[in-house]
């Protein structure tokens, strides 16, 4: 029984961090129709900035703040300087399908190399803002710590904030319109290009939070967020890529599923486990969990 609760709680924690990454990916997908593989790279860069600030100031939350800002700026920068150039040039031939995917892969490698050249590859650590001791109930200690609770709370706050942003504000409306029907949005006077950049900025900032949270009490290196990249993407695909709610649900499903495999089957199988979860979902619903009926919006 205890193992079940442990698994659920850890799964929830992992899932909520993946939720941030999958949200970022869905945000970018909906606004630009591009799967941004560099999302985790941007998050990694933001996390290094957060590392610098938090290790100098000894305050984790200050580092987080800078990570968010840094991530947002980087996201906006990538969209403005990189994506627009890309779409101007690479839009014909068989590569049109592949080009954005490859381009973001290239961007991921570029960011990773720059980070490696600037900071080196040694493992760095970011101190967790709260204790990482497991909670003790009576005589047993469960591996769910204050940090895990903080993660879940932080992610929930961000999700609520984003939901409010998208549903209740003009900016949110503009973001949704620009993604869903760009031509009509332009006619309505919305500056779609600018709005898209803002979308990228939000995605980048959210990624920065994910990076900081997952690295607290863990090792930071130019490769440490690769897991986040893969699982964030899988989570987004499971959820359906078309809805933010789906992204979150997909991430939680994935997080809990992976933890079950980790605890009950074996550590080496979590990656193929991710694949299995994904293929099972897609076999039943090829457009993800939250997809509404047939008709892929290409």
């Amino acid at each position, binding site marked *: 029984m205890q193992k079940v609760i442990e698994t659920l709680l850890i799964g929830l924690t992992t899932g909520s961090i993946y939720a941030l990454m999958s949200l970022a990916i869905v945000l970018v*997908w909906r606004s630009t129709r591009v799967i941004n593989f560099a999302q985790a790279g941007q998050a990694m860069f933001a996390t290094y900035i957060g590392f610098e600030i938090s290790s100098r100031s000894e305050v984790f939350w200050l580092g987080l703040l800078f990570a968010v800002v840094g991530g947002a700026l980087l996201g906006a920068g990538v969209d403005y300087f990189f994506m627009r150039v890309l779409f101007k040039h690479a839009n014909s031939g068989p590569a049109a399908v592949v080009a954005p995917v490859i381009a973001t892969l290239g961007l991921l490698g570029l960011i990773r190399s720059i980070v*490696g050249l600037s900071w080196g590859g040694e493992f760095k650590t970011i101190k967790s803002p709260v204790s990482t001791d497991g909670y003790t109930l009576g005589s047993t200690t469960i591996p769910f710590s204050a940090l895990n609770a903080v993660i879940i709370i932080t992610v929930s706050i961000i999700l609520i904030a984003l939901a409010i942003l998208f549903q209740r504000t003009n900016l949110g409306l503009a973001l949704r319109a620009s993604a869903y029907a760009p031509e009509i949005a332009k006619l309505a006077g919305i500056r779609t290009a600018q709005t898209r950049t803002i979308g990228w900025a939000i995605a980048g900032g959210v990624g920065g939070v994910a990076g900081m949270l997952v690295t607290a009490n863990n090792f930071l290196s130019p490769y440490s967020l690769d897991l986040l990249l*893969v699982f964030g993407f*899988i989570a987004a695909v499971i959820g359906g890529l078309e809805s933010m709610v789906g992204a979150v649900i997909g991430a939680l499903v994935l997080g809990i599923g992976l933890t079950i495999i980790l605890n009950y089957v074996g550590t080496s*199988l979590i990656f*193929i486990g*991710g694949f299995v979860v*994904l293929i099972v979902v*897609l076999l039943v619903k090829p457009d993800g969990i939250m997809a509404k009926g047939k008709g892929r919006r290409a």
Partner: protein
Amino acid sequence: MELWRKARVAVRKKIAFFILLGWVLLIIGDRVDELRVYQGAQIAMYTIALASIVLLTGYSGQVSLGNGAMMAVGGYSAALTLNNLQTPIWFAFLMAILVSALFGSLLGAAAARLAGPYLAGTTLALAVGLPAIANQFSFLGGEPGLLFDVGFPPESFGEEFTQYKWFFWIAGVIALIALFITSNILQSRFGRTWRAIRGNSLAAELAGIHSARMKVLAFTISSALAGLAGAVLAMNISLVAPGAYSLALSFSLVTGAVLAGVSSLPGVVLGGFILVGIPEIADALAGSLGGADKFNNYLPGLITSVLLILSVIYTPNGPGENIRKHLGKKHA
């Protein structure tokens, strides 16, 4: 009737061309030092792997990030066959082709309904997950992997005939045969059908093409090629290990394919050169920059990424397209 005669002539010309190519490679293999011969074997391996991407992505339009996983299937099949059943080498390679074709057909069937990012995501998950399975089952050798020993060149070749040269010969012959067959497939109606599907799946269906079946076929053949490449890689490094078939390999294959022209089969040779050449160039650059660890570790990645980004922006369909455009302008 005319078509039939013409076709036979064309095929004969192609066979002659490939034989000539093989002869050239033979001579080169004799003239260069061991490092180059080894790199030649690696280039041959890459051409086969890149051919699998050209077929799958360039022709049938399915973006797969999981070719590394299929290479792993081929490599491990070959190693397990060779080590446990003590078969001749060619049989091990044959098993690599068959087993990965089988896996490929399963993957294709599962993925037939997927497109775009959903397919990319699934193959990404596979690329990350499949090699890691080796860590779970000890007969797969775990992280350190299994040794793959194709043995030494025949005694009659003499003392000077190094093992790497032997690998170069084997890899070269396999690559030539594989590319010849692939070229024929791509130029046949299969190739045309795939391009039709890639162009407009709905229109293709209306024209009577079974999209799903053709997509699965593409996956099957592409995986067979990838598996063969994986077995050749295993031969070159005498090892199959999960690290040799990492996600980084899948990424670099896609990189190489795009750089050389994702829908151009001849481009795979260029792609192979690029993939083997970049670490060399980066090494030389890093050396001249002072050889600090940082440079050695991250410079190759930097160069690859920059090259990739530039080529995607300016030559998304490979340098062939740009040359064609340029020549076209001249005629206009």
